[in-house]
């Protein structure tokens, strides 16, 4: 059993590829005892049968099934119609289970990658129900403040984080290049590292008060503009990590987003891959008294 603590939550993971997760999540290892806030367990079974409940077919190989007690199941099947994977998460996201088929080769992913992804999903829902949130973005700490660069995949958020580190190595620390959390201890938006960080290994257990959220898009010329909260709901919500099937979690994430936007400056940054972009952003942050 791997025991973690992050964002104030205790998490127990009992996964098939325990050694991998023990190494990958080592910075968050914790010695807590008693009932955790989230327990996530993997199982192997010779055969799987899809649970019965209210179904929504997502694509030919995946459906969501909501059970009578509110348990949400993500069920995958192969082209032959056999159930190959089931992910069950309780309505309060305190217990998640993954069921894999024994002696079965998953076509598009490894068991470890699936465990990684779904344990993260469970954590994101659990955190949302605590009033906090996880979002896609590259997070850095700069002069004691948290800065998140958020964008669709491939736009260059990790590049921006790396440029800051390269330009100002003594003042910058990379925290998580894929999905940092924002928590609200004492009502203060606080950037927090979490163990999950996508394909990037940077997942530092560091918490800092939020300085700025920066939405980025590719541009020919660097440009930065401060946005009104009302203009950023849609682009930011798109980057939040939460199950769309747990309505309570989805609603809670909206509330968290509202709290974040009330207190955190948000910018739109047209970026290039050159050093002029971070220099321009820093100039704006200094002018606005953020760092």
């Amino acid at each position, binding site marked *: 059993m791997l025991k973690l603590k992050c964002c104030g939550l205790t998490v127990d993971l009992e996964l098939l590829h325990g050694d991998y997760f023990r190494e990958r999540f080592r910075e968050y290892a914790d010695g807590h005892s008693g009932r955790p806030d989230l327990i996530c367990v993997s199982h192997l079974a010779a055969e799987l049968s899809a649970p019965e409940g209210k179904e929504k077919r997502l694509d030919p190989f995946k459906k969501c099934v909501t059970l009578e007690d509110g348990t949400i199941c993500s069920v995958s099947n192969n082209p032959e119609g056999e159930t190959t994977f089931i992910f069950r998460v309780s309505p309060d996201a305190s217990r998640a289970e993954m069921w894999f088929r024994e002696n079965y080769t998953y076509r598009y992913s490894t068991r470890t990658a699936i465990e990684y992804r779904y344990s993260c999903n469970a954590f994101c829902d659990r955190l949302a129900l605590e009033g906090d949130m996880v979002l896609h973005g590259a997070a850095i700490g700069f002069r004691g403040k948290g800065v998140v660069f958020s964008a669709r995949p491939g736009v260059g958020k990790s590049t921006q984080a790396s440029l800051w580190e390269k330009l100002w190595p003594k003042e910058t620390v990379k925290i998580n290049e894929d999905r940092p959390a924002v928590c609200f201890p004492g009502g203060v938006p606080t950037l927090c590292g979490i163990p999950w960080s996508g394909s990037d290994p940077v997942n530092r257990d560091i918490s800092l008060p939020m300085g700025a959220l920066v939405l980025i898009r590719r541009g020919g010329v660097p440009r930065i503009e401060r946005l009104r909260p009302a203009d950023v709901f849609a682009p930011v919500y798109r980057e939040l990590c939460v199950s769309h*099937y747990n*309505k309570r979690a989805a609603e809670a994430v*909206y509330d968290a987003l509202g709290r974040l936007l009330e207190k955190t400056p948000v910018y739109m940054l047209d970026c290039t891959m050159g050093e002029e972009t971070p220099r321009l952003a820093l100039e704006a942050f200094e002018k606005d008294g953020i760092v």
Partner: protein
Amino acid sequence: MKIKEGYMLKALAGENVVINVGPDSADFSKMIRLNGTAAFMWRQLEVGKTPEETARAVAQEYGIAPEKAEADVKKFAAELLEKGLAE
């Protein structure tokens, strides 16, 4: 008409925003902001009031002529139907 399941009005960062917490929540074309009057209308419709009852409530709340309130509610309802937020 009634508001579709999964859509709700939230006050976020000082704005009235209609959000979707259902399986279609990735469709941001339906995320809309409402002014104060529209938010009032939404709250009436949300609790099951008919457009006629909503118009009466609007006229009373804002002290406007019933005909004007009816026209406003009709326009708002048509917009909700067009955007797929009501049925």
